[in-house]
């Protein structure tokens, strides 16, 4: 029997995990687990998750974990980090939690350069509640609350989180956008975002473009097409701000 290689920091009693087939969360959490292992921070990591599909990670890691309210993971992580700076705090959320209901916390924690690491999974919809429009829903994309397609005239254009965070953060911040279609790059960005916290440089944020075949109603090919040919051109992948490299990594 071949034992699949899973990160040491994964909590095996809750595996296989509960995400839908084809969902990108598993890829992000695998990359994150490997990075936690490589940085040897499992014992001092506090993993916080939001409401929405991201909450299915509440017992995912063999790390101390806490599940919060919709949009409130960021202030809970800030509270932990401010109280115990030696801990490594990872806030894990979706696009609705980060860019919508928790957007004031995202903006203000970035402005204050809070030394937390935030990972935001962008799959262009509210998955857990059944596929409603999210801040990141693409123009024309159908969801349960944009049944005739998202109309930018009345609902604006998709939120570009890393772009606005790069503007408001100060020296020492790390801001990047990754995608589950480029695993090595995703891992490198997550590692940089955690290194940045470990070194105490400042706020660290990675948006990860991800897949949601269940709510997109797509087969494997269509899922990959939507990610690579619709989402990635709209949301450019790369490091927008990094203390580690001047000019960023595209």
């Amino acid at each position, binding site marked *: 029997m071949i034992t699949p290689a899973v990160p040491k920091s994964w909590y095996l009693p809750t595996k296989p995990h509960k995400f839908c087939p084809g969902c990108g969360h598993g890829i992000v959490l695998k990359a994150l687990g490997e990075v936690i292992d490589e940085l040897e921070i499992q014992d001092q990591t506090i993993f916080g998750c939001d409401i929405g599909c991201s909450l299915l990670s509440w017992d995912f890691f063999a790390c101390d974990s806490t599940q919060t309210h919709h949009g409130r993971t960021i202030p809970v992580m800030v509270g932990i980090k401010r109280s115990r700076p030696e801990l490594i705090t990872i806030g894990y959320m979706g696009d609705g939690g980060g860019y919508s209901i928790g957007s004031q916390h995202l903006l203000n924690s970035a402005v204050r350069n809070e030394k937390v690491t935030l990972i935001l999974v962008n799959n262009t919809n509210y998955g857990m509640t059944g596929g409603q*429009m999210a801040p990141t829903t693409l123009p024309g994309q159908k969801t349960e609350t944009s049944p005739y397609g998202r109309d930018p005239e009345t609902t604006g254009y998709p939120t570009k989180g890393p772009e606005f965070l790069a503007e408001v953060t100060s020296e020492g911040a790390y801001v990047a956008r990754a995608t589950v279609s480029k695993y090595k790059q995703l891992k490198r960005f997550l590692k940089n975002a955690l290194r940045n916290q470990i070194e105490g440089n400042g706020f660290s944020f990675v948006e990860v473009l991800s897949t949601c075949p269940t709510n997109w109603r797509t087969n494997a090919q269509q899922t990959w097409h939507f990610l690579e040919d619709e989402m990635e051109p709209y949301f450019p992948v790369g490091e927008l701000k990094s203390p580690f490299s001047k000019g960023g990594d595209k």
Partner: protein
Amino acid sequence: MLKVVDETKKAFLTGNETIAWAALAAGADIMFGYPITPQNEVMHYWTRLAPRYGREFLQTEDEISAGFTVCGAVQAGKKAFTATAGPGNVLMQEPFGMAEAMRLPLFAIIQQRGGPSSGTVIYSQQEVALTTYGGNGEGYRIVYSSASHQEIYDYTIKGFNMAWKYRWPTFLLGDGYQAKMREPLEMYDPEEKGIKIEPTYPLVGLPGKIGEDREPQHLCNIYSLEEELYDVVMKLSAEYESIAPEIIEWQEHHCEDADIIILTHGIVSRAADDAVKALRAQGIKAGYFRPITLRPYPAQQLRDAIAKSGAKTLLVAESSYGQFERLTKQEIYGETIKMEHLYMPGVGIIDYDIISKVKSVL
């Protein structure tokens, strides 16, 4: 304008969908909402239907925003509403408080889910305290607790009307079961039933030239002196109390000779109704009392039912841990009837549960 219900007929609906249709039939202009289970289909159906009838929708960034955009829209003279649940109801207490203070005709549907915190997305009656007395105020609200899809339809239409007639924030308190259940109801055009649709009017953006035709509107909810606020609150209280008798609604039966009165609200009253019938068939004199308005509460009516029946016991059954009983106790303070309770927080109550409890306390 295209008619929403062109023929009065029975239809088969879910509760959330019923709200969307009733809001259309009541002439609602715009819904503001944010995804939260178990109210999502109110938005799903509103967004599908609204464009056909020239109505509007905005998905806001959170529930705080959904509540305040409703406050803005009603000040602009539009019939606006929102729907939420659980943690969303918590966030909306801030705008609901503003609506109380400023007498804004806000209408909101609350589909209770389990609590505290994120709780469950399924069902409870744990948002009674929050919906009746949430916020930093005195609970100047009208709260209808529905028990069937027909009532959801009727009280959604009535809720808009009461909000605009009396200008208190008005709520339809449902729950996750009612949201998702499906049952027949009669859909109708309210005006064809002789229900007068209350007119809407703006509080700001009034016609006329300021200084010539009219004075400017200065709406506010903050005061510099204690005495100022005291006067405001005393005036609000007096006005709320004076209209309360016109608003109070309740249901009772078999209370005339009851030994035990079963007190429930919302969907649990369906179980109570069945339980009373079954107990009566077994020779146990049980009575049924149900406040339809939890705020204002039918306190005198309940006192009267206790008095005329001579009942020895009042059994409160609720899918929460005493919120409804506490509300009742403060309303009927001084009654000496023995109180018993069946608390089943976050889970459904069926007739069997109530019958067993009655037998254990008699």
